[in-house]
């Protein structure tokens, strides 16, 4: 980042007359200079989408816009005129139809029902776990919201409460879905599907929340090169990502031998193994490809490209072409940028 010293803006005398807002208008000229002038011409149409605003800055005075996230309405005017929409964040303006919102550079993940999240157990309580999902508040996972060993239809007993640490203990990683939200935004998770549950055989990484594009499915299975075999990628909407060696999922569609697992056989399949803390044997080739995918996802996020299935695939291909051997570019920003640019070029080509 180049270093420059910003000179203070020239002083402008306060002009309190002719200002029915009871305050100064902070206006942004086209050349980016800040003018603190009470006599600035009134802007009616609002700013360009993508323009940058700071807290307290008037976004628009036009009443046709609805205010979205990151904005608030000014206090009612004595004259009875329309209230202006004011930014409460430093960020860029985004317009969705008639909704104006400000997107901050950094924001925390806000859970929504149905989100697939990757989380880490923070605390074990009597009938629940507290899970870190990168949101302002930690989420809860109730003992009644998990698949108990021995089958999906089994009732929770007091024995399970006593053995709560055998399912998840502090520091364990899991993939779950947001089941409910309380009215103050606290999330409650569930893992009542064989797609969800404890994570092992892989590597955990974080990127900024919001760098993961919302998709139809957030669990990707990739065929990797160099004898790496299949690799599962859990792209949590909260920016937590887990990349693991592919294990045959115990879903209704495909059992270990390709035959379907009926609901009656679930209790045999969903055994204690789903809460195992022991990694399987992972070959060096698979480890190398897992690391390569982690590097690609990190590079995408660092270079401001949203992570989705297509970009992960293209980025992985680009990384293979750029560096057939070795993972030495992992911390190399320039190499990461080259890979991302190659991936973007591939996407343009279609």
């Amino acid at each position, binding site marked *: *980042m180049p270093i420059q*010293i*910003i*000179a*203070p*803006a020239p*002083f*402008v005398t*306060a002009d*309190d007359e002719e200002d029915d807002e*009871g*305050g*100064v208008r*902070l206006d942004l000229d086209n050349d*980016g200079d*800040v003018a*603190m002038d009470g006599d600035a011409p009134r802007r009616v149409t609002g700013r360009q989408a*993508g323009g*940058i*605003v*700071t*807290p*307290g*800055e*008037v976004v628009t005075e036009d009443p046709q816009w609805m205010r979205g996230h*990151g904005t*608030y309405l000014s206090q009612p005017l004595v004259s009875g005129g329309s209230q202006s929409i*004011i930014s*409460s*964040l*430093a*960020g*860029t303006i*985004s317009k*969705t*139809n008639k909704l104006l*919102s400000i*997107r*901050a*550079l*950094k*924001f*925390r993940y806000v859970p929504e029902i149905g989100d697939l999240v990757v989380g880490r157990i923070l605390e074990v309580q009597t009938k629940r776990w507290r899970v870190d999902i990168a949101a*302002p*508040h*930690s989420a809860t996972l109730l003992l009644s919201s998990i698949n108990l060993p021995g089958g999906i239809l089994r009732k929770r007993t007091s024995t399970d409460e006593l053995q709560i640490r055998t399912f998840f203990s502090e520091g364990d990683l899991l993939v779950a879905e947001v089941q409910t939200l309380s009215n*103050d*935004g606290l999330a409650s998770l569930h893992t009542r599907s064989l797609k969800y549950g404890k994570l092992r055989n892989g590597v955990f990484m974080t990127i*900024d929340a*919001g*760098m993961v*594009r*919302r*998709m*139809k499915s957030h669990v990707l299975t990739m065929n990797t090169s160099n004898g790496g075999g299949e690799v599962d990628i859990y792209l949590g909407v909260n920016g937590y990502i887990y990349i693991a060696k592919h294990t045959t999922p115990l879903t209704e569609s495909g059992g270990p031998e390709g035959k379907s697992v009926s609901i009656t056989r679930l209790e045999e399949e969903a055994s204690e193994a789903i809460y195992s803390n022991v990694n399987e044997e992972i070959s060096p080739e698979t480890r190398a490809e897992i690391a390569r995918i982690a590097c690609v996802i990190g590079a995408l996020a660092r*270079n*401001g*490209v*949203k992570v*989705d299935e297509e970009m992960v695939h293209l980025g992985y291909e680009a990384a293979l072409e750029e560096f057939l051997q070795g993972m030495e570019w992992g911390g190399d920003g320039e190499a990461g940028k080259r890979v991302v640019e190659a991936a973007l070029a591939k996407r343009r080509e279609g």
Partner: protein
Amino acid sequence: MAAKAPDRRRNNPPSHGTTPPVFLSSSSSGAVKPKQSSRPPDEIRKIFLRTGLISSVTGSSFLEIAPLKLSVSVLGPRPLPRTSSTPFAAQAILTTEVKFAPFASTVRRGYIRDSSERDLGSRLYQALVGAIRRELYPKSRIEVVVTILDSEDEGDDVNTVYIEEGKATVETKFWDAGRSERALGVVLAGCITAASAALADAGIEMFDLVSGGVATSFVDEANSKGKGKGHLVSNKLYVRDPAIAPPGGKTPLATCVLGYMAARDEISELWISGKVGTKNGTTEMDELVDEAIAAARSARGVLNEAAKERVQFIVDKTGTAPPSKGETTDVEMSG
């Protein structure tokens, strides 16, 4: 400075501080007398303000105004600790902490916060608490931690050592009285401005950015010696963002520090110390406050640019706007 509680956990330096060696032969180098400021009294010093320097916290900023250097970290919003003693909080709880680094002033500071640091912390709290949209963050806390790395010497009890033409002299200036307020005022104003930038960097929603401003009123030295109220009606010189050394032949009367929200024209924190009188119906306090507001407005320009700069940097770097969800162009609705 208040008497420090003995700190038994650390290997403490001498409590009276240490003095660097003074080499009399090198007349040209070494400490020089604070030079009289050449800037006009209505101009504030140049401000360097940058955000996002500390990657491990939610938001951060670094501010430099001539000798003053400070860094601000913002942590949160994060959940309140779940203890029985923690009351329910419908709004976010803000905590502010101001700490001078032990090496920040000529007199070495302790590691434990002293009364002036706690005082600055509560004033900073007052300046910021009204600006943050706390109702959006229930059951959360937001922490603002300011570390002052370098500051103008604010101690009343310090004699100033000057070196001139190979001769060291120790002077206690008449203006040493009240310099503590001026120095702390500049520090507080800097804390407020930098903390606002750090909060904006953290993406915490605010009604407006708060910028800090300082102004001091000065009177001719000759007038100040007279008895009675003579000096209160004579012409004042108002200096925005005052340096430690007053203008020649002037003696300080009062200092005003405030936190000001320019877009809303609201003062969130006001601190005046010294003597103020009345003149022709307008109080000098109003004049002093107006001067401090003017200083805060000038600082606001820098604050706005600093808040924008980082967003602009990311936008330029990636060619894309910051990430978001729910935007029409971004949602992939396949299948």
